[in-house]
C-alpha cells in the first residue's frame, strides 16, 4: 500500500485513490467545485490544485491518483507521493482562481438563497481576497427557467458543469448543455426538452453556488433560520435519505442526503416536493366520536375506553387493518393488540422508473410495505373474503391519510360493520365513515423505523411538532392495549416497542435508533459485520 505525505501527515492509502479523497478522509480540506463523487471527473474548476513534489505544475487533486512507485523513485526514500495543500503556491493559486470566479459574480449574497451553504461564499471567505481588482463592467444576464421548477441565475454560475453531467450521467436525460463558448458560455436547456425529468430538483442540490434554484424554495427563507432534520423520504418504498428543512410548524424544503446503500446522493422530485401535500389537509387534532351525521369531540381517556370496549365486545370479530405508510412500531403493536384477522388497504401504485445510474423510483409508493409485511402478522391474500367468512363486524384501521377511491367491495364492507375505528391524522373518506377517530401523526411528525423494499431499516425522524391533541400512532395503540389488557406491562416508550419487536421477530433483533444511525441497517446482514 502506498505511503504518502500530505502536508505533515503520513498516510497509508489504497492504490488508485485520488489525492482529494485521501485528503478528505483525513480531515484535510481541499476546496472544490466541479468535482462531485457521483459524477465523472472533469477537473475544470481548478480549485483543488495542490502541489505534488516532482511534478512541474500544480495538479488537480481530484484527478491525481496515488500509486506505488519503484523504490528508486520514492521521495525522501520512503514516500510514494508528497503533497502540499497549504503552501504559499497553493494558497496563492486558490486566491487567483477565486478572483477569476468572482470577476463577474454579482456578490449578491444578501438576497441569494444559497447564502449560508454556498461553496463560493465559504471558500471566498476562507481563501479569497477581501477586495476586487476588477474595474471593468460585469457580464450581466437575465435569469432563465431551465424547466418548470428550476431557474438559473447565470450571473452566479461558475460553469462547474455538475448539472450538465448530472443530466447526462445520472438521469440520462441530457436536457442541459453548455451553450456558446469561452466567456460567453452558459448553461442552457435544449429548446424542445426543458429540464422537467423527475430528478430535476437534484441539480439545485448539487449546484455549489446559488445559480440553480428550485422555484419551490426561492426567496422563501434563509438557510440559517431553518432546522435541518435528517430523515427518510416517505413517498415510495426505496426510502431515499433526506434532510428536511423546517421552521416552526412548516417544512420548507427537502434535499437528498447521501446514503450509498440506498439513494447515493440523490432523490426524486416526487419525494422532494411531496411535503406540500400535507400542508393544506383537513387535520384531525382531537379524538372524535360519531353522533349521527356529525362528530363530537372526546377526551383521550374516554376515546380509548370506548375503543377498547368495542373491540372487547366483538372480540375476534374485529379485523385490524395495518398500513405500509406507518412505522414498524405502529404496525407491530397493531399486530400484537389481539388475536384475529389482519388486512391492509389497497396499495398505492405508480410508475416504476429506473435511471441509467441505478437510481430508481419504486412502483410501490408507500414507504414501509416490507416492514408491515415483516412485522404486522400474516395478512391473508383473500382478506376481503375472509372478512365475510369470519363474520367480521368491526374494523380497527391504521389509516394512511391517502385519499383513495375505495371500490364498491370496500364500501360494502364499511357499511356492513357494526363499528369502524380509524386512527388517522386527516379527515379522509375512511375517517368520515368511522365511529371513532383517533388522531395520529402526519408523516413529517412521526418518529420510528421503516424498512425499504431492499430490507434496510431506517430511522424516520420528525421535522414538525405534534398538532393539537394528536398522539404518536404507536402510543395510541399502546394505550388501547393497556386498556384491553391491564394485566400486561404497558409500553412506555418507543424503544421498548422496538425491543419487543426484536424479541418477536428475530430479523429485527437489536434494532435501535442508536444503531440505525443516519444510514440504517440492512436486514440481509450484508453491511452489518
Amino acid at each position, binding site marked *: 500500500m502506498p505511503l504518502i505525505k500530505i502536508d505533515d501527515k503520513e498516510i497509508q492509502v489504497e492504490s488508485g485513490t485520488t489525492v482529494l479523497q485521501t485528503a478528505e478522509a483525513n480531515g484535510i480540506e481541499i476546496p472544490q467545485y466541479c468535482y462531485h463523487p457521483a459524477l465523472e471527473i472533469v477537473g*475544470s474548476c*481548478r480549485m483543488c490544485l495542490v502541489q505534488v513534489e516532482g511534478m*512541474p*505544475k500544480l495538479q488537480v487533486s481530484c484527478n491525481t491518483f496515488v500509486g506505488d512507485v519503484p523504490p528508486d523513485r520514492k521521495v525522501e526514500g520512503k514516500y510514494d507521493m508528497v503533497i502540499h495543500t497549504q503552501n504559499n*503556491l497553493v494558497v496563492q493559486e486558490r486566491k487567483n482562481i477565486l478572483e477569476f470566479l468572482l470577476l463577474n459574480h454579482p456578490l449578491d449574497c444578501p438576497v441569494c438563497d444559497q447564502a449560508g451553504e454556498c461553496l463560493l461564499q465559504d471558500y471566498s471567505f476562507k481563501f479569497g481576497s477581501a477586495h476586487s481588482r476588477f474595474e471593468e463592467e460585469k457580464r450581466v444576464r437575465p435569469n432563465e427557467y431551465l424547466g418548470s421548477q428550476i431557474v438559473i441565475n447565470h450571473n452566479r454560475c461558475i460553469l462547474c458543469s455538475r448539472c450538465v453531467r448530472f443530466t447526462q450521467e445520472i438521469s440520462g436525460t441530457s436536457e442541459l448543455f*453548455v451553450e*456558446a463558448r469561452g*466567456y460567453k458560455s452558459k448553461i442552457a436547456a435544449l429548446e424542445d426538452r426543458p429540464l422537467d425529468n423527475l430528478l430535476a430538483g437534484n441539480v439545485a442540490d448539487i449546484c455549489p453556488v446559488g445559480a440553480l434554484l428550485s422555484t419551490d424554495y426561492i426567496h422563501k427563507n434563509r438557510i440559517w433560520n431553518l432546522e435541518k432534520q435528517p430523515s427518510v423520504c416517505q413517498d415510495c418504498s426505496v426510502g431515499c435519505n433526506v434532510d428536511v428543512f423546517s421552521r416552526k410548524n412548516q417544512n420548507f424544503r427537502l434535499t437528498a442526503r447521501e446514503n450509498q446503500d440506498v439513494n447515493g446522493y440523490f432523490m426524486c422530485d416526487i419525494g422532494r416536493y411531496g411535503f406540500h401535500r400535507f400542508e393544506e389537509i383537513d387535520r384531525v387534532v382531537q379524538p372524535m366520536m360519531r353522533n349521527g351525521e356529525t362528530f363530537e369531540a372526546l377526551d383521550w381517556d374516554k376515546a380509548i375506553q370506548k375503543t377498547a370496549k368495542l373491540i372487547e365486545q366483538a372480540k375476534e370479530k374485529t379485523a385490524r387493518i395495518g398500513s405500509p405508510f406507518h412505522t414498524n412500531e405502529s404496525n407491530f403493536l397493531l399486530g400484537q393488540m389481539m388475536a384475529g384477522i389482519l388486512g391492509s388497504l389497497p396499495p398505492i401504485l405508480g410508475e416504476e422508473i429506473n435511471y441509467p445510474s441505478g437510481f430508481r423510483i419504486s412502483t410501490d409508493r408507500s414507504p414501509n410495505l416490507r416492514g408491515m409485511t415483516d412485522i404486522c402478522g400474516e395478512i391473508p391474500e383473500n382478506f376481503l373474503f375472509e372478512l365475510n367468512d369470519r363474520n367480521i363486524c368491526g374494523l380497527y384501521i391504521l389509516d394512511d391519510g391517502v385519499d383513495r377511491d375505495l371500490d364498491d367491495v370496500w364500501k360494502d364492507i364499511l357499511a356492513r360493520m357494526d363499528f369502524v375505528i380509524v386512527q388517522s391524522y386527516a379527515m379522509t373518506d375512511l375517517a368520515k365513515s368511522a365511529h371513532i377517530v383517533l388522531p395520529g401523526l402526519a408523516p413529517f411528525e412521526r418518529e420510528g423505523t421503516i424498512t425499504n423494499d431492499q430490507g434496510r431499516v431506517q430511522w424516520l425522524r420528525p421535522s414538525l411538532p405534534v398538532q393539537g391533541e394528536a398522539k404518536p400512532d404507536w402510543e395510541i395503540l399502546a394505550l388501547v392495549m393497556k386498556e384491553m389488557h391491564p394485566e400486561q406491562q404497558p409500553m412506555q416508550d418507543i424503544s421498548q416497542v422496538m425491543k419487543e419487536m426484536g424479541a418477536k421477530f428475530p430479523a429485527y433483533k437489536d434494532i435501535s435508533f442508536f444503531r440505525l444511525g443516519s444510514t440504517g441497517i440492512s436486514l440481509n446482514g450484508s453491511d452489518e459485520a
Partner: protein
Amino acid sequence: MSAFKPVLTEYIHQKDCHTLSFYKSVGGYSALDKVLKMNPADVIQEVKDSNLRGRGGAGFPAGVKWGFIPKDTNKPKYLINNADESEPGTFKDRLLMNKAPHQMLEGMIIAAYAIGCQTSFIYIRGEFYKEYKMLEMAVAKAYESNLLGQNILGSNYNLDVIIHRGAGAYICGEETGLIESLEGKRGWPRIKPPFPAIEGYLQCPTIVNNVETLSCLPHIINRGADWFKSIGPEKGPGPRLFCISGRVNNPGVFEEPMGISLNNLIFDRAGGIPDGKNLKAVFPGGSSSAILTAEEALDVNMDFDELVEKGSMLGSAGVIVMDETVDMVQACLNIARFYAHESCGQCTPCREGTAWLVKMLTRLVNGSGTPTDIDMIFEITDNIGGLIDFSKGSFGKTICPFGEAVAWPVRSFVEKFKDEFLKYLPQEKVIA
C-alpha cells in the same frame, strides 16, 4: 543550406501533382509496399530512430508517442490525422492537403500499420472545404486502387479512412478536444491522465498526428532514419514547412531544413520587409508562441530547443513578421481577442482571464488605462497560463495548453514592448 532540396513539397509546382498517378510516377506508395512487409515494431523503431518530432505545435517525438499504445489490449486502436490547422499564421497543412494528399495518405497508412489500427480519421478544419473535397477524392482513389480498404496490396492488412469535418473551433486542434468533437460531443479538452494513447477515441488507444508529421513518414521509410536525422539539428531534425506571413515582400510556405536561421527565412526566403522598413517583432511559431523582438529574431535558429531557450517555441512554425509600423498594443489586443473568442470556457482561469485581458486592453487602447493595469496584465497572464520562469513556480494551470497559448504571447508583448503600452496611458497618470 543552399543544397537543401525540398522533400515534402518537391513536386507541388507540377501539373496534377495531387493525383494518384502523378504521385505513383514519382515513387509514391513505394514506402507503403516496403512497410507492409515489415514488422510493425520495426516501423515504430525506425520512426523513433529518425527523431521525428510532431509538426502540430507541441513537438512531441512521434515514434515515442506511438510507443505509448498498450501492447496487451484487445481494444481497437485508432489513428487520427489532425488536419484542423487553426493556429493563426499557419497554413502549411492546407498546402500539403491540396498539393500532396497522397503523400499524407501514405503516411497515414504507414502510421496506422505501425500502431495496429484498422480505422483512422482525418479531422479536417471546417473552413477547409476545397481541401476536404480534395481529400475525399484522394481517399476514393486510394480505395479504388486497393491502397485502402480490405487486404491492402494483398497484405492481409485492412484500413479504413474516414474524413470528418470540424465546425470551426480552434480548440478542436488540441488532441483531446478533437477526440471529443469527433465523438460528436462538445470540443472540450479532456483532463489527462488518461492520455489518448491509452484511452482516446471511444476510450480506445488513439494516436493523433499532424498532417505534416504524417507526410514525413514515407520519406523516412524510403530513405531511412539516418538520412532524416542528417537534416538539421539531430534532436529535432527533418524538413519543415515554414509559413511566413505579415510584413514581408514574399509571404508563403517555405520548406527548409529544421534549424534554419530566422534571419535567413525572413530576409532571404520571404524577401525581407517591404518599403525599406525595419523589423520590429516576430512570432516564430504561430500566435501562441511568445513574440521575439527584432534583435532576438535576427539571432535565432528555427529549432525546437533553441527557441525554448529563448523563451518562445517553434510551435506550428507559423512565422508572423511585424515591422516598425505595427502598433504592438493593438496587435496584443488582437491576439487577446482571438484567444478570448476561442477559449472553450471549461477551465476557470482561461474562460474568465482571457475576457478580462480583452476588457483591460480595450480600456487601455481607448485611453482609460492606469499604470497598475500593466502590472495587472502580467499577473493575469501568470494566473491563466502560469509562469514561464520555472524557478519561480508552477506553469500551466489549465486542462489543455490553451492557457499558456494566450498567456505567453500577451505577456511577451507587455514585457518586450512596455514603452508602447505606457504611451497609451493618459499622460497625467504616467509616473516617471
